[in-house]
């Protein structure tokens, strides 16, 4: 009515601070470029739950979720046109992250790598992959390590079983796990997203340390336009601009500032002091893509259930 | 007939609470509905008021069939057993309520309410709330409230049940006077026969949803139509082999007799100067002081009979032999009652000074 264009970005929990900043940047950019006012309305939550809310009618113009799989789910209901992954660069993944460890100041339990996590005296905090999309990355990161050090499948499973038997609290989401570790002071090590770990480290200055494992996974959050909604709202173009602009240099730097790894390799290098670039990062393709990974590991009765319930 | 019920049936589920009830009440009469608990008295009253609908049958008020007229339009005043005074209104507001609904001008309302309150002896209590009144006063407010809109018919459901014995007696007299003075057709429910007998012009006796008898108190007292009425009304002892008593013969199929204390005269042996031949000899079994009289229980050849004796007379004592004269008794079979007079007594009644 007032000439303001409103778009809704449905995202997942650990991107709150980033998108708060990015939206402002974008709104200014759009104003400057086209002289029109855009207001971005933001929504956060567990990645899966956020995907579901879009399926159920949440009027999202764009989604920026933790997993490609979550976007595929929306695509399956017809809201997003096929081929979204190719719509933007880098598989529509403007930023990436990985899984690292957060330990208390001075690293009292001397945790250096994944194999320290299966020690009897270590309490691990990591969220439940069955309810949190983000936590699936944690699982896959550990599995990457297991596959690296263990060629035998039984050995890999054994490692995973031991690891998850060390988990003392398994929260429903990444944020819950963080709170448990940070606020409630539970556990010795938090298996966390790199950006999350960086945020905590900055926010609780001097209280926590980040430990980079030797092997981890390349977490590729994906973005897409929810075509049906955007069409209906007449915001297809703004939405495109919104996601496109994520790849701009300013935005990529902003991404770096907020602890995500910029997709732009050059800009990523500017943040070499922040991100350990030598970690051996596996990718989802090493696990046969999301759908395959999901079925093999996270479905009811699949690997996770087997190792966890009997660990 | 001013209020009339014709062949009324009322069912609650499977239970027949009124079973072909018909009766009529004349204009200006005060009628009691008397019967044991659960006999359907309240049900009848509520149907007249329109608070309940009969399953079958017609109700007439002033010659007009009112079955389809809603309760509020029947022009009936109703005094509820528990008074149902409006708790959050003062006495004045309670009485004025019906008048306000009629959109009567304030001034007129005030006049009428004040008049009614002084009529009912409640002057000066206008501002009180019901809970600041005694039971008797509440009853009168309920009465004034029911009267305020000038109803043609007044219905009262056990108006005295919740009141002290002492106050009750006063209120009864008061009610009777009031209703007579106003000439309003009234029906009240009671299960207390003293109350019915004392207050009502006519009594309707109900039992198991049926009207057993209707008549003046005296009629009902003196000639009960049905065995139920004979036993229900008055203080009665039931005697089986009444034909063993002097002067009474057995009536076929009538196996039981009712003897009321006032049918019995007990005299100290030798003091009875008439009807000696009609009198029995009995032994005093018990003498019970009843405040204003003595009840004397006498055993006559194994038949126990109770009579009354004035306090002014000589005391009889337990074990003493006395003369017992039974004037009459009721006998009844399944359906009917018969009044039997003592045959041994002469035609002429006993002579009293």
């Amino acid at each position, binding site marked *: 009515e007032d000439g303001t264009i409103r778009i809704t970005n*449905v995202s997942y929990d650990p991107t709150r601070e980033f998108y708060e900043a990015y939206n402002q940047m974008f709104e200014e950019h759009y104003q400057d470029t086209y002289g029109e006012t855009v207001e971005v309305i933001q929504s956060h939550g567990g990645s899966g739950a956020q995907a579901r809310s879009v399926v159920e009618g949440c009027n999202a113009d764009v989604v920026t979720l933790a997993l490609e799989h979550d976007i595929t789910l929306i695509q399956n209901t017809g809201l997003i046109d096929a081929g979204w992954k190719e719509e933007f660069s880098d598989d529509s993944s403007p930023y990436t992250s990985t899984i690292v460890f957060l330990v208390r100041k001075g690293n009292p339990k001397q945790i250096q790598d994944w194999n320290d996590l299966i020690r009897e005296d270590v309490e691990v905090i990591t969220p439940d992959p069955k309810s949190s999309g983000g936590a699936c990355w944690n699982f896959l990161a550990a599995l990457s390590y297991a596959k690296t050090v263990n060629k035998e499948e039984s050995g890999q499973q054994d490692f995973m079983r031991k690891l998850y038997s060390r988990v003392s609290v398994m929260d429903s989401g990444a944020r819950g796990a963080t709170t448990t570790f940070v606020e409630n002071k539970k556990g010795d090590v938090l298996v966390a997203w790199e950006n999350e770990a960086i945020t905590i480290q900055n926010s609780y200055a001097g209280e926590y340390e980040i430990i980079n494992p030797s092997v981890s996974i390349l977490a590729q959050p994906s973005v897409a336009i929810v075509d049906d909604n955007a069409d209906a709202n007449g915001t297809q173009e703004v939405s495109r601009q919104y996601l496109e602009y994520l790849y701009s240099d300013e935005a990529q730097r902003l991404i770096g500032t907020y602890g995500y790894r910029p997709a732009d390799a050059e800009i990523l290098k500017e943040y070499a002091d922040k991100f350990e670039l030598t970690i051996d990062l596996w990718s989802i393709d090493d696990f046969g893509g999301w759908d395959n990974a999901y079925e093999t590991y996270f479905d009811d009765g699949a690997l996770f259930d087997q190792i966890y319930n009997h660990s | 007939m001013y209020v009339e019920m014709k062949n009324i049936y009322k069912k609650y589920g499977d239970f027949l609470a009124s079973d072909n009830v018909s009766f009529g009440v004349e204009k200006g009469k005060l009628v009691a509905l008397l019967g044991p608990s659960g006999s359907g008295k309240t049900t009848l009253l509520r149907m007249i008021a*329109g608070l309940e609908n009969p399953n079958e049958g017609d109700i007439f008020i002033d010659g007009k069939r009112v079955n389809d007229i809603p*309760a*509020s339009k029947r022009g009936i005043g109703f005094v509820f057993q528990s008074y149902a005074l409006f708790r959050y209104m003062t006495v004045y507001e309670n009485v004025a309520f019906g008048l306000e609904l009629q959109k009567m001008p304030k001034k007129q309302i005030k006049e009428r309410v004040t008049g009614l309150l002084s009529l009912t002896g409640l002057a000066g209590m206008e501002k009180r709330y019901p809970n600041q009144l005694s039971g008797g006063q509440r009853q009168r407010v309920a009465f004034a409230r029911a009267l305020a809109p000038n109803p043609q018919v007044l219905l009262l459901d056990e108006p005295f049940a919740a009141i002290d014995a002492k106050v009750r007696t006063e209120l009864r007299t008061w009610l009777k006077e009031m209703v007579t003075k106003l000439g309003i057709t009234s029906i009240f429910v009671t299960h207390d026969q003293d109350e019915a007998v004392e207050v009502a012009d006519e009594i309707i006796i109900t039992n198991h949803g049926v009207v057993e008898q209707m008549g003046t108190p005296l009629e009902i007292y003196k000639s009960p139509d049905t065995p139920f009425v004979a036993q229900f009304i008055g203080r009665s002892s039931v005697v089986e082999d009444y034909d063993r008593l002097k002067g009474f013969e057995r009536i076929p199929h009538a196996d039981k007799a009712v003897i009321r204390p006032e049918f019995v005269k007990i005299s100290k042996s030798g003091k009875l100067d008439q009807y000696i031949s009609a009198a029995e000899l009995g032994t005093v079994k018990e003498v019970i002081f009843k405040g204003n009289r003595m009840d004397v229980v006498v055993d006559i050849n194994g038949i126990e009979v109770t009579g009354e004796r004035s306090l002014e007379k000589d005391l009889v004592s337990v074990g003493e032999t006395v003369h017992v004269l039974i004037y009459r008794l009721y006998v009844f079979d399944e359906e009917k009652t018969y009044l039997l007079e003592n045959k041994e007594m002469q035609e002429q009644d006993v002579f009293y000074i």
Partner: protein
Amino acid sequence: MSENEKLERSRRRTKIILITITVLFIVLMLVVPLLSVIVNSLREGFTFYIESISTEYVRHSLLVTLLATGIAVVVNTIFGICAAWLLTKFSFRGKQILATLIDIPFSISPVIVGLAYLMTFGRLGWFYPVLRAFNQHFGTDVRIAFAIPGVVLATVFVTFPFVSREIIPVLNVQGKDEEEAAALMGAKGFTIFRKITFPHMKWGLIYGIILCTARALGEFGAVNALSKTRGETFTLPLEIDALYMSGTKTSITAAFAVSSILVILAIILLIARNIIEHRGKEKEPKGTR
């Protein structure tokens, strides 16, 4: 010591034990969590406290909360009064079942409430096509799920029986004699309600409204499923959740600060309830009717 004294002594001992248990339970289980909210909210100092409760988000979500609460109170008051009238003044077949149905929201998980609304009004719900047809026909953009109406509906659902639950027993005890008497004199429905019934249920009604308000202010689970956009459809509890989930040290304190608004509102309401109840009982005409 006489037996009477012994008895008196043991009675006093029981009394002391029971009072101790009660005080401990209420303090430890109810008061301490409450205080802990307050203490946590002040962790970063008072200035921060004021700052965190005066953000645009908080202000907006407070408005949404008040709107949802207001509507819930109005709807549930109307419903509560009607239900109480229906259930206490009339007898009809199926009354018991109706009474049971009214209580259902008490015992249903908020998660299911959210699910139920989504399956009705959400994109997958059967009502969605109807809504869409409506919108297309009239050129409107009426939304229920993920919009304010959904938030309001969910709030109404979870507080649904609160008012009726409070007034039904009161009216049950009162019976229907007074209403019958008034109806018999020709009073119309509304007059009867206003002059006769309302004074009886006034205190119960106020009490019910207060409870309903308290519960509506705090509803999280059901609304959570239907409200996704911060600053738009968020209620205070959702805003608290959002702050808590922001994951910085200060945002958690901010979450507690916003919670403290609700806590303070709740305390005010509960105190009001007590005062009102106390007054109500005092004013209530005593004695038999």
